[in-house]
């Protein structure tokens, strides 16, 4: 494997995983972030197990339906992300950029849907610390902190995607950068696959 330090080409030892540092670092980040999410989800489970007065307030409509739509949007954005990576691999920069923007848009849509749902719940009187229907106050705490943490990741991802899309179009970033972004974006997607059942479905009336 070749690399350039300063201006002289330097011969390197092979990477044991055969992937560049950026990708390796992203994989490590994914694992560490997965541990972070697990910790929060474990805290949620811990308190739920400890609260006999837990209530499951979610109606099929609007909450679960909305959740399904959000899931659909996020999974689709995963698909467009894959398309972007494929295009980048085949060197079709224009197509890749387009797919990146599509992913970015879907991510933004997901965030908007989520924020609208938050607003509705806040209007109904849900808070981090209170619970209009009575029962354990941990519901609000768990719901807003878990989904909030995920939402932060989505928003961060949307911003990253925008930056990468611009840079990729200008040739500032190469296909590996797109692939790395893809890993992150699919991870956000993957986390949602746990958040949706555990936070939404487990709390459906």
């Amino acid at each position, binding site marked *: 494997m070749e690399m350039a330090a300063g201006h002289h080409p330097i011969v390197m030892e092979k990477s044991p995983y055969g992937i560049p540092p950026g990708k390796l670092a992203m994989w490590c980040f994914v694992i560490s972030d997965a541990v972070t999410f697990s910790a929060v989800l474990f805290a949620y489970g811990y308190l739920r197990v400890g609260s006999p007065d837990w209530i499951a307030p979610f109606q099929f409509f609007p909450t679960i339906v909305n959740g399904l739509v959000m899931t659909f949007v996020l999974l689709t954005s995963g698909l467009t992300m894959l398309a972007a990576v*494929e295009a980048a691999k085949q060197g079709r920069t224009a197509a890749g950029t387009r797919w990146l923007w599509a992913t970015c848009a879907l991510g933004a849509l997901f965030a908007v849907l989520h924020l609208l749902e938050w607003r509705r719940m806040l209007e109904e009187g849900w808070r981090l610390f209170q619970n209009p229907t009575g029962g354990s106050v941990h519901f609000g705490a768990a719901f807003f902190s878990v989904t909030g943490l995920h939402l932060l990741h989505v928003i961060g991802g949307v911003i990253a995607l925008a930056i990468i899309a611009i840079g990729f179009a200008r040739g500032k970033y190469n296909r590996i950068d797109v692939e790395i972004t893809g890993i992150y974006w699919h991870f956000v997607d993957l986390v949602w696959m746990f958040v949706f059942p555990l936070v939404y479905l487990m709390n459906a009336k």
Partner: protein
Amino acid sequence: MNSTAPAEGPGMKFFVAVWIGLMAIVGVEVFLTYRHLPPRELLVLLLALAFVEAGIALWYFMHLKFERAALVWSLVPAFIFVVFMMDHFWPDAFRMASMKLLER
């Protein structure tokens, strides 16, 4: 699992199929939710399905399948180990309920 640098993926058609599969699993999850099973069973089923989904996403969407086995064997066990250790929290979670300060 090939052991050279990232190979070319199987192409979009396949990924669309996977995507449909994932949506189907989500559908099953919602269906199960409204079977009104006892929470414990529902939890087990949902978690099982979630892990399947996660596995698929990891394997195909995140291209783990197309990386070296070594990467898989470094990342996945590490995570599973940590989550396994975290399960030591549960006994105390149950104590919370069983030893609650009662207003006798």
